[in-house]
């Protein structure tokens, strides 16, 4: 038996290459992780991080290169083999069955017969040892996103992994929950577990990780010790150029009210959704209002009520530009000057198999693209080309299919399409979610410019830094209801993070705390 010594890397990969028909995802990647090391893999979307992790976890097979596990060459051909070696992975999108309990979900991933009572005890052991409180008997649909992530982590830990891979783990957590997760990870590292931490959040990597490998365009562009770098130097490694700073401008005040929500309550049809309770909100022209909160607290339901995708029973609760719109469908609300950038880009904000020109028609058809029921494709195409040029959308032209674009470029296209319609009210959901740093700052600047030209803007985001960067006022959503608003300069991340648990002054008793991470 080969016994690794402390100077044998836990994992060393050499010259990994993976070519897809459309792109080179990984090109000669080298990476070394020592026992007990928290190692960041940093890169923009499309840099090849996910592909690399899937290679390590045995989901995909590299075209070239080798993997050394504790000094020995291994061919990892499937995830079961990876788990047998001692590799665990927590994916960004969880793979849990909502209608089963925690222990049932965990049991599904463990081979062989086992009895649930013993397994429950083991889950409780692991959860108390690593500060991951979760009740094994609860149904998953009743858990918050943070708790679900704990289930995923516990599921990995039960297999006693020696390498834990985490893919963007903090994107769904409150600041307080992030801190708890970091404590757990540090404890694991102290016990000798190696951790591969995938992220694009530079401050977190600086706080947590011992070393970082930076990827760009499928290649390693550098390795560094994050504590000796600044976010600016790491960003430069990641995107190749310096980040432009957003210029904010003075907050406007006293513009006309473009969106007025008064006492909105709405029971959702989704059994796992959140009911909206007594929501009050005003957005005026020339201001950006942000809604912070952990996802699953009613944001989806509120957005569908505002956009008209789920019209209300009564027309009074929502007014747009002075018109009561509660019962109107999205097309009629758009006619009043509302534009909306949804969270899901492919399949909601854009039709995957249609060209960009055809996707322009989806919402911008009012801009002179119709003539007695027929489509004026020339006008739509010019609009698409203008959008591609102004918003720097990287694509093969207006005739490319939407699904051929990367997530960030498609988002720039959708944001561009909505902004170019000169909206009176623009609603954005997770505008930069999964979008790379360069494109994010471009989108934020475009939104700020629009606000300065007098548009009323509502942003719903899980990224607190983003809200603090662009918003004039912030409200918090928790358990289907909204907090009072705070002027951004008069609050801080601590206070908003606290409110995200539903604990703002004057909030109701914290019943049904299930949605709080």
């Amino acid at each position: 038996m080969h016994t690794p010594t402390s100077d044998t890397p836990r994992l060393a990969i050499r010259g990994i290459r993976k070519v897809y028909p459309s792109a080179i995802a990984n090109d000669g990647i080298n990476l070394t992780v020592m026992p007990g090391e928290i190692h960041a893999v940093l890169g923009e979307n499309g840099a090849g991080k996910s592909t690399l992790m899937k290679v390590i976890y045995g989901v995909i097979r590299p075209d070239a290169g080798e993997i050394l596990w504790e000094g020995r060459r291994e061919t990892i051909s499937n995830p079961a083999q990876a788990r047998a070696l001692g590799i665990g992975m927590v994916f960004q999108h969880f793979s849990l069955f909502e209608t089963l309990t925690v222990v049932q979900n965990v049991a599904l991933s463990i081979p062989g017969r086992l009895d649930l009572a013993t397994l429950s005890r083991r889950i409780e052991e692991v959860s108390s040892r690593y500060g991951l409180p979760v009740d094994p008997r609860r149904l998953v649909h009743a858990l918050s996103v943070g708790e679900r992530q704990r289930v995923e982590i516990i599921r990995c830990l039960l297999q006693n992994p020696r390498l834990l891979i985490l893919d963007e783990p903090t994107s769904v957590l409150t600041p307080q929950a992030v801190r708890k997760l970091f404590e757990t990870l540090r404890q694991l590292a102290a016990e000798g577990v190696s951790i591969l931490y995938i992220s694009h959040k530079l401050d977190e990597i600086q706080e947590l990780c011992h070393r970082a490998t930076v990827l760009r365009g499928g290649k390693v562009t550098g390795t560094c010790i994050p504590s000796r770098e600044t976010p600016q130097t790491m960003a430069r490694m990641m995107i190749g150029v310096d980040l432009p700073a957003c210029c904010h401008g003075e907050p406007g005040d006293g513009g006309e009210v473009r969106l007025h929500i008064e006492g909105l309550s709405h029971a959702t049809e989704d059994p796992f959704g959140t009911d909206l309770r007594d929501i009050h909100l005003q957005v005026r022209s020339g201001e950006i209002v942000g809604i912070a909160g952990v996802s699953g607290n009613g944001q989806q339901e509120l957005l569908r009520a505002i956009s008209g995708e789920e019209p209300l029973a009564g027309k009074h609760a929502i007014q747009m530009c002075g018109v009561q719109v509660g019962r109107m469908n999205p097309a009629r609300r758009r006619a009043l000057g509302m534009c909306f950038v949804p969270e899901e880009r492919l399949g909601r904000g854009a039709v995957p198999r249609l060209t960009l020109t055809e996707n322009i028609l989806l919402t911008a058809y009012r801009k002179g693209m119709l003539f007695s029921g027929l489509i004026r494709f020339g006008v739509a195409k010019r609009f698409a080309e203008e959008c591609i040029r102004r918003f720097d959308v990287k694509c093969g032209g207006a005739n490319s299919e939407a699904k051929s674009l990367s997530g960030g470029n498609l988002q720039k296209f959708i944001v561009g399409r909505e902004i170019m319609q000169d909206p009176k009210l623009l609603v954005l959901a997770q505008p930069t979610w999964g979008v790379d740093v360069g494109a994010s700052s471009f989108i934020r600047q475009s939104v700020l410019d629009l606000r300065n030209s007098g548009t009323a803007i509502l942003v719903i985001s899980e990224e607190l830094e983003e809200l603090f960067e662009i918003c004039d006022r912030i409200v918090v959503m928790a358990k289907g209801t909204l907090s009072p608003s705070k002027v951004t300069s008069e609050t801080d991340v601590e206070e908003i993070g606290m409110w995200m648990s539903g604990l703002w002054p004057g909030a109701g008793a914290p019943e049904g705390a299930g949605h709080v991470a």
Partner: protein
Amino acid sequence: MWLKFEPRAEPSRAMAYLSPLLAVGLMFLCGMILFYILGKNPVEGFRVFFMNPVKDAYGVAELFLKATPLMLCAVGLSMGFKANVWNIGAEGQLLIGALAGGGLALHFEGSPSPFLLPAMILAGALGGMAWAAIPAFLRTRFNANEILTSLMLVYVAELMVSWVVHGPWKDPDGFNFPQTRLFGAEATLPILLEGTRVNAALIFALGALVAGWIFMNRSFMGYQMKVAGQAEHAGRYAGFSAKRSVWIGMLAGGAMAGIAGISEVAGPIGQITEHISPGYGFAAMIVAFVGRLNPIGIFFSSLLMALLYLGGEQAQQYLNLPSSISKVFQGMLLFFLLGSDVFIHFRPRLVRRRK
């Protein structure tokens, strides 16, 4: 060595158009093998089945006659199929169209009015639409699957036809045969070419192809239906009505099938009988998919399907095979088309077996 299917990065456009041709080729090939197994000379069989029917002008005219109801049904159905509206009851809508229009012809028997024929066509379209409206209503109101309801209504329609020709509308001078009186000249579609049976319905069919092409490729409503069919959430996000897509998809299919039905009884048949359609409404689904839901493709695929019908009759006459051989060919065509369509999204590759 073994064959592996790799997903393509982009669906292959070339393959989308080649696939129907490949399917036709495979159908020819397997058809000849089938002839051989049945003890016929395969080359002779091919000649009788696929070339005999169109060896003279009359044969070509018959080809267009048979293709007419197929074009009508297929173009109507493809409008719905593009929007994910699965009307598979065109056969029933065709029959009800024939009953509605034919009923008018019987009621105004002997009327010299020049409006009788246009009224019959209109009644045929409305009859087909009414029959299609039932599944549309059930789908939009109760979310009932239109595949099931539209199919079941085919059998109801067949029984209704059977009832009227055995009962109330039976020709009193018809020696008790289950059929109505023959329609008068004013209630019969004019022949386009002297000496053939090709009638004005072909003009309706070609017009429907052009209108269908404009609707699907140039109209905003057709665009909305395409969006609703491909990405339901995007349709809702944009504010397009999903219910309206279902209604238009179903009613377009019903109207076209109804016109096909009245064109048969007011055309080559000349009366209502129990055998109005040899399964045109079902074959039209194959026609629509072989034609890639595109009116230009449907034009050619309906001619091919018509050839299968004629070939079946020839095979019965000259090869001593049952005429249902054309159903076998239809089945093979659909089977090979579905098989070939795999290549649109996957590319075959020979790989060495590992270990």
